[in-house]
């Protein structure tokens, strides 16, 4: 086990400080407006409360506390951002930029009502006049950022809790609750099983098949337990790839965030859509076999469900409201369901099955809560929970004293939003963890504390969830440059290695038996670390980041977009290359003050954007690294970042799609584009390949929604890339018959 850096123990002084801060924060919550009378009226506040829940709370939270990629709309952060500006500026901003995914889509009255509600929550009292778009009153003359609890009220808190999903089974069972986290969702089809059918000739999937998957299938997130995103299929080659043609396509649910991995078994595709909808399709023809709209509907364009799993006779699916489902693979009927976590938690990273256990990570740990993030495992037959591993080191447990004395309830973050990988020989599963929250050390008050097990590689025993070792890549990470992404398992001779790359763009190689650092490779420009020790793997922030204070602006290259993000790498075994999708953008970023209170916290940041210097505004970068020598082999860049994972094959082809709708095939040896086509909207998700009756197919989704990888190019390429705001769809390509 590796413990590096300065570990701060719980001290009486620190505890007293935390208690005092908590008390002070509590004192800032009022039940009536504490500031002046604002340029809006009570009717607008009431209407705005409802409109806020319907249109805003999915991202900004039911209590305006902010979310993973959205700012808080109440309290000191709001005042710091907007207090000194006038209401007309704020109206203009909100009415042209919000809601995310539907900017400018609400009526002028609705925008005025929502803004009135926000002002009221920030301490202002309603007056006699109605808010208008052109009101030029400076915001801090009638708000003070003291959150008005009564204005938020029970209605808001209630609306923030989604109705639990119904079982959605056939036979007229009550439809699943619509709304989910953050309030009622958009109107749509009824939930429950909506199409009934039976998969013909379904063959149960054994543990042996998961360990050695058929090249014809794509049984799990990254094709194999090792996380390669590589297929032994070789029908499509550099010589014939130019002949690829569309075989069929399938319109998917709109709304929410779609970052799907189609799962293929024996000619059947199991496809997860937004609104927690699972479908089975004939993978050759695109014919729908069964469909179960489990729900709930999304309330924000965030949190795509990345992968489902198949094992024996079941399909496993972890929903965006943190419920694990097992569906009958033949019919789509729900066999069992188990609540993973409550509150505002969700699961997006995909699930994996190891030796009869279904494993899932957990996200939604942004805000201070009594429930912390964990990885957990469930009996594949019954749904009973087998074990739980807390990714936040709690007080009294190893590493619990690395949070600068914070109470457990104020240890936020450390989500796991990408499924792990697995080494059957070592019987070890590898997971990456996200950053602590709030993002900034000064905001979360951990300062020099490492905040275990944030930004780490975890090696767990899948039988009992016990930690075998951990490696913390960036102790005390502070800029949302986390290392939560795929862990790729590669052998070089007797050397058993795990490779991973995070938002910093540093490619790491560890010994996956011991967790010992082997080597690293910085792959793109960064300006946050003043020292990168390539012998030890130790990083050092530049001094101003170490000395940080809240509300101080820092340049961060890369931005929270990464570097590297969820768009996974592909390990091409024949060439020993890891092909890495990367993004190039920067931000000026600041961490805000947060209240130490349950429900508080969040990411607590503000960002301004700029292109990465030296890139000539090229946001997308694709590079290949020799994994034995850790040396770059080829790279190129383009305007649009890549919004799909990389897929490579034994045929020597790589497939990848981008923000500007281009889906292309490349030569894995050179990176040269060999074929490309244009999809309906952004190519987004995890491309897969499979074969039926000897014919190789390529499947890729077009999708929308998501965090920084969507938001940064949306901002920076606003005048360059124009794409439809709908068009979530699956496309399947193959060579001519």
């Amino acid at each position: 086990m590796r413990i590096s850096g300065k570990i701060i123990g719980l001290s009486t002084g620190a505890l007293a400080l935390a208690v005092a801060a908590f008390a002070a924060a509590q004192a800032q919550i009022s039940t009536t407006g504490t500031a002046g009378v604002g340029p809006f009226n009570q009717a607008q506040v009431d209407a705005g409360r409802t409109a806020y829940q319907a249109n805003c709370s999915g991202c900004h939270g039911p209590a305006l506390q902010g979310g993973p990629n959205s700012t808080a709309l109440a309290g000191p952060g709001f005042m710091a951002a907007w207090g000194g500006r006038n209401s007309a500026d704020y109206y203009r901003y909100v009415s042209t930029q919000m809601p995310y995914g539907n900017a400018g889509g609400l009526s002028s009255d609705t925008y005025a009502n929502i803004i009135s509600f926000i002002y009221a929550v920030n301490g202002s009292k309603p007056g006699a006049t109605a808010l208008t778009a052109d009101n030029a009153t400076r915001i801090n003359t009638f708000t003070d950022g003291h959150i008005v609890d009564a204005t938020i009220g029970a209605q808001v808190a209630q609306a923030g809790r989604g109705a639990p999903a119904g079982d959605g089974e056939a036979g007229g069972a009550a439809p699943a609750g619509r709304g989910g986290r953050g309030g009622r969702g958009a109107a749509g089809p009824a939930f429950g099983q909506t199409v009934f059918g039976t998969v013909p000739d379904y063959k149960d999937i054994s543990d042996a098949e998961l360990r050695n998957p058929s090249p014809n299938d794509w049984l799990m997130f990254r094709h194999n337990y090792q996380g390669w995103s590589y297929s032994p299929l070789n029908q499509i080659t550099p010589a014939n790839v130019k002949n690829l043609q569309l075989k069929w396509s399938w319109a998917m649910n709109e709304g929410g965030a779609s970052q799907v991995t189609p799962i293929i078994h024996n000619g059947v595709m199991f496809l997860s859509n937004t609104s927690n909808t699972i479908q089975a399709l004939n993978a050759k023809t695109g014919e729908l076999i069964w469909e179960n709209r489990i729900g709930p509907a999304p309330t924000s364009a965030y949190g795509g469900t990345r992968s489902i799993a198949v094992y024996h006779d079941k399909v496993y699916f972890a929903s965006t409201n943190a419920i694990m489902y097992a569906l009958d693979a033949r019919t789509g009927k729900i066999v069992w369901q188990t609540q993973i976590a409550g509150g505002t938690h969700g699961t997006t990273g995909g699930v994996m099955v190891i030796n009869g256990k279904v494993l899932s990570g957990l996200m939604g740990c942004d805000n201070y809560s009594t429930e912390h993030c964990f990885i957990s495992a469930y009996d594949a037959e019954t749904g009973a929970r087998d074990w739980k591993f807390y990714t936040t080191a709690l007080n009294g447990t190893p590493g619990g004293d690395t949070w600068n004395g914070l109470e457990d309830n104020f240890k936020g973050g450390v989500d796991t939003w990408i499924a792990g990988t697995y080494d059957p020989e070592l019987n070890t599963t590898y997971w990456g963890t996200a950053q602590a929250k709030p993002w900034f050390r000064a905001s979360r008050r951990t300062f020099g504390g490492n905040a275990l097990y944030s930004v780490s590689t975890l090696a767990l025993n899948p039988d009992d969830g016990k930690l075998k070792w951990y490696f913390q890549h960036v102790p005390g990470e502070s800029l949302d440059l986390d290392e939560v992404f795929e862990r790729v398992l590669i052998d070089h001779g007797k050397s058993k290695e795990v490779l991973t790359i995070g938002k910093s763009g540093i490619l790491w190689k560890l010994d996956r038996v011991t967790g010992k650092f082997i080597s690293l490779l910085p792959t793109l420009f960064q300006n946050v670390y003043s020292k990168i020790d390539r012998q030890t793997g130790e990083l050092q922030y530049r001094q101003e980041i170490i000395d940080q204070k809240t509300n101080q602006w820092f340049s961060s290259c890369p931005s929270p977009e990464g570097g590297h993000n969820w768009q996974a790498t592909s390990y091409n075994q024949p060439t020993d290359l890891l092909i890495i999708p990367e993004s190039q953008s920067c931000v000026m970023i600041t961490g805000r003050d947060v209240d130490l209170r349950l429900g508080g916290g969040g990411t607590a940041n503000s960002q301004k954007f700029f292109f990465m210097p030296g890139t000539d505004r090229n946001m997308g970068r694709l590079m290949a690294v020799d994994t034995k020598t850790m040396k770059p082999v080829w790279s190129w860049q383009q305007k649009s970042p890549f919004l799909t994972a990389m897929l490579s094959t034994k045929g020597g082809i790589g497939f990848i799609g981008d923000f500007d709708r281009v889906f292309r095939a490349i030569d894995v040896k050179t990176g040269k584009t060999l074929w490309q086509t244009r999809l309906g909207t952004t190519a987004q998700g995890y491309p897969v390949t499979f074969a039926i009756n000897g014919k190789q197919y390529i499947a890729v989704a077009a999708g929308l929604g998501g965090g920084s990888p969507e938001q940064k190019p949306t901002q920076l390429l606003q005048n360059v890339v124009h794409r439809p705001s709908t068009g979530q769809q699956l496309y399947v390509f193959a060579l001519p018959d």
Partner: protein
Amino acid sequence: MRNHAQSAALALLVLNAMPALAASNYTLSLDPVAYDNSTRDVIVGDGHLKASLDGSTLTVSGNFSGLSSNATTARLGLGLDFGIPATVFFANLTASGAQAGTISGSVTLTPAQVAGLNKRQLFLQLSSVKGADGSLWGWFVPVDNASGTARTTKKTGVAKDKK
């Protein structure tokens, strides 16, 4: 943070960081820095400049376009590093024109500023009426005198089958 070693040779900030060699020619791209949703219609435009260093004299020329309001000042500053803006400036250049125009001028650099120039720490900020704190920013990048291209990209290679 961790305690760290030691070797200056390992103190690399970037993969493609250039060694601090004296270089006589530079290029600079002006980009909007930094904006958010509320200012993205104000902080817009682009520009391209060239510069040459003769002894300690830096001569800059180039153009800009696409500003949302008239240009006001063009200033040189020395930041902590590439991509890190600073708020302290040491020289003004001449910005002529309105929402499009030219930037030119010569300044005498101190040895520290020359060193910063070659470490890509020197930047130019172009302000405008609506972007008083800077509309466009850019960092000087040494030009490879042999090829005439900015030293920001890596050579590509070809992989071979290994297994």
